[in-house]
């Protein structure tokens, strides 16, 4: 189908996945209200499955979207969006699966949880595909507001509330930066349309007005907050630590992926002409994030917090792909986000599984001897950790290799070396968990007995583990898809300016 966005009907088709998911979410909200019986816990797994079905329906719509082409609208209809949507839907599906048992255990099994989660995903999908800064901002807010609430969802836990407040305040701060940036960019160019922006700015690095540069700078700061790059990461550890773990998983995967997708679209595509300028800023952000986050992660005694810092560090790796800002970089970026989503969601899934009742066991000592008492669970965790570390036999390795390739293609040798060294640092803290699981004895022979992960969680972790391994042995399909997806992304620019930065 060919869309030219002359009529509103075109928007309906172009936004089909988002529309399906929104309507489904409203349906779930109503179904929850009209559900018979008490609103007490554990009686209503149906809502979760219904939400999952909504994600699946959106995925189907997204598959259909592959047959559609469209240009000129406020929403992008390109491979990049479709690929990003799949990543976001995958993150959401994994988050729902790992939530099921968790919500029961923590006595917060309410339908609204899934409804908000679905709306958050709608926001992410809009954020990742907006072709207009205004729509981008509204999508961002939709996602953020839903996530603020979800972070504070566990009202019995004061840490959850504190995390929500911190996340809300700093999130609002970031939104203000973004909005200010958008306003200045509009002031300088007279448009908020990403394609028009690219055209207006042209290759004009020399004569770009200060107003525009300031706007770009503020946008960069706003995005840096959202993707939690150092030094704009200060909210991350507390928010990730205090949030209900399934939401932490969603924040570390979906929210981050969506923000990154928007960042790449805005900077690489619209501000491609100013590449020389902003690349310096992102270079430093990437370097600082990789080194700083990995160093701080070394000192963490809580696995959940360690994973939070690890997710900051991974933002640094992804930023390297952004700095490369070429087609290889964009493809590497998508591939890495996919692997990252799988391994991070899987790792948080294990953190959820390693709990007793409503007590989360997140300190390192709580994992002692897990390897021998719960071999399958520990093996899965080891796979995720090795993948996060970027070790061969896991998708994380291919992902990092891909990013290194993009960095070298863009002639960013020092950044590549920093990435490698940062990975080496990260070996240390990822391995520490493996050490504790396998090489330290459990306090008692039955320490980990009775850790029974719920069936949906097992499914999520299993899918993630198999995915991570498969992405090493047979990455070809995903690699091709990633490369195909970004093919259209830089075309407009190259046609306009004859820019070519690597293959």
């Amino acid at each position, binding site marked *: 189908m060919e869309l030219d966005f002359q009529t509103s009907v075109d928007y309906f088709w172009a936004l089909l996945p988002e529309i399906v998911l929104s309507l489904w979410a409203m349906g779930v909200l109503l179904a929850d209200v009209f559900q018979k019986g008490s609103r007490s816990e554990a009686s209503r797994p149906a809502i979760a499955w219904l939400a999952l079905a909504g994600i699946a329906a959106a995925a189907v719509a997204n598959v259909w979207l592959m047959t559609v082409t469209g240009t000129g609208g406020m929403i992008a209809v390109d491979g990049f969006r479709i690929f990003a949507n799949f990543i976001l839907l995958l993150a959401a599906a994994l988050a729902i699966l790992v939530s099921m048992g968790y919500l029961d255990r923590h006595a917060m099994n309410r339908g609204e949880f899934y409804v908000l989660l679905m709306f958050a995903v709608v926001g992410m999908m*809009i954020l990742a595909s907006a072709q207009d800064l*205004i729509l981008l901002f509204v999508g961002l807010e939709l996602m953020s507001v839903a996530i603020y*609430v979800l972070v504070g969802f566990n009202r019995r836990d004061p840490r959850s509330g504190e995390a929500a407040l911190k996340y809300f305040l700093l999130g609002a701060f970031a939104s203000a930066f973004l909005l200010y940036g958008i306003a200045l960019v509009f002031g300088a160019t007279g448009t908020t349309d990403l394609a028009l922006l690219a055209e207006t700015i042209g290759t004009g690095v020399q004569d770009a007005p200060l107003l525009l540069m300031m706007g770009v700078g503020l946008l960069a700061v706003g995005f840096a907050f959202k993707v939690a790059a150092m030094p704009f990461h200060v909210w991350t550890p507390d928010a990730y630590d205090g949030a209900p773990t399934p939401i932490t998983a969603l924040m570390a995967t979906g929210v981050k992926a969506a923000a990154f997708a928007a960042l790449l679209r805005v900077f690489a595509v619209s501000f491609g002409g100013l590449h020389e300028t902003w690349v310096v800023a992102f270079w430093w952000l990437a370097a600082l994030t990789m080194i700083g986050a990995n160093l701080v992660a070394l000192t963490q005694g809580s696995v959940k917090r360690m994973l939070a810092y690890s997710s900051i560090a991974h933002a640094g790796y992804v930023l390297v792909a952004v700095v490369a800002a070429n087609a290889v970089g964009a493809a590497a970026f998508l591939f890495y986000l996919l692997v990252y989503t799988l391994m991070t969601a899987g790792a948080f899934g294990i953190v959820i599984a390693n709990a007793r009742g409503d007590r989360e066991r997140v300190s390192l000592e709580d994992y002692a001897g897990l390897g021998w008492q719960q071999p399958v669970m520990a093996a899965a965790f080891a796979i995720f950790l090795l993948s996060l570390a970027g070790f061969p036999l896991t998708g994380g390795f291919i992902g990092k290799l891909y990013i290194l390739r993009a960095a070298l293609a863009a002639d960013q040798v020092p950044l590549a070396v920093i990435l490698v060294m940062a990975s080496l640092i990260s070996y240390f803290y990822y391995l520490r968990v493996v050490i504790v699981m396998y090489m330290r004895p459990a306090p008692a022979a039955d320490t980990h007995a009775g850790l029974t992960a719920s069936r949906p969680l097992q499914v999520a972790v299993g899918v993630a583990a198999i995915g991570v391994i498969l992405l090493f042995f047979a990455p070809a399909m995903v690699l091709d898809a990633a490369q195909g997806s970004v093919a259209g992304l830089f075309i407009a620019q190259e046609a306009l300016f004859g820019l070519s930065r690597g293959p």
Partner: protein
Amino acid sequence: MLTDILFFFFAGIAIFCGIMVVTRRNPVASALWLIGTFFALAAIYTLIGAFFIGVIQILVYAGAIMVLFLFVIMLLNLGNDYQPDLRSRAWMITAGGSGLVLLAILGRVFAADTTAPLGRLTGPEAVATQVAEYGAVGAIARPMYTDYMIVLQVTGLLLLVAVVGAVMLAKRRV
């Protein structure tokens, strides 16, 4: 020239009121200072020829939303014993410092030529042409319900989420 003077006058008021909002200890006082900001903003809108937005700003924000704010504050009976948010001197210096830096950068930015946007018209001229063509309301309404239809819809979703979220977080029985 007069427009410029008026602009800086109202901008100053807006910033001053904004600072007062965050430094007052009494929530009611904060809310009232906020009204000052809204009025100043409305005046600035009017200055660039966006009369309709200026009026709406006063009607909706200063009129309706602030009343609701005050209503909520009184309903929840928030007392006067609030700690100021900027507790320590270090924070005040940090906040003030970064504010000044931002101000300096912005001053530099706006002191440079801002009159020649890269492509299309912005500012009062753009508003004037739109208003001339579609009328004051039409200049807002047309793009809102045509070009920015999707944004409007998503904003609707955003409000729904906010309502659901507020209920979830504020409901008394956990």
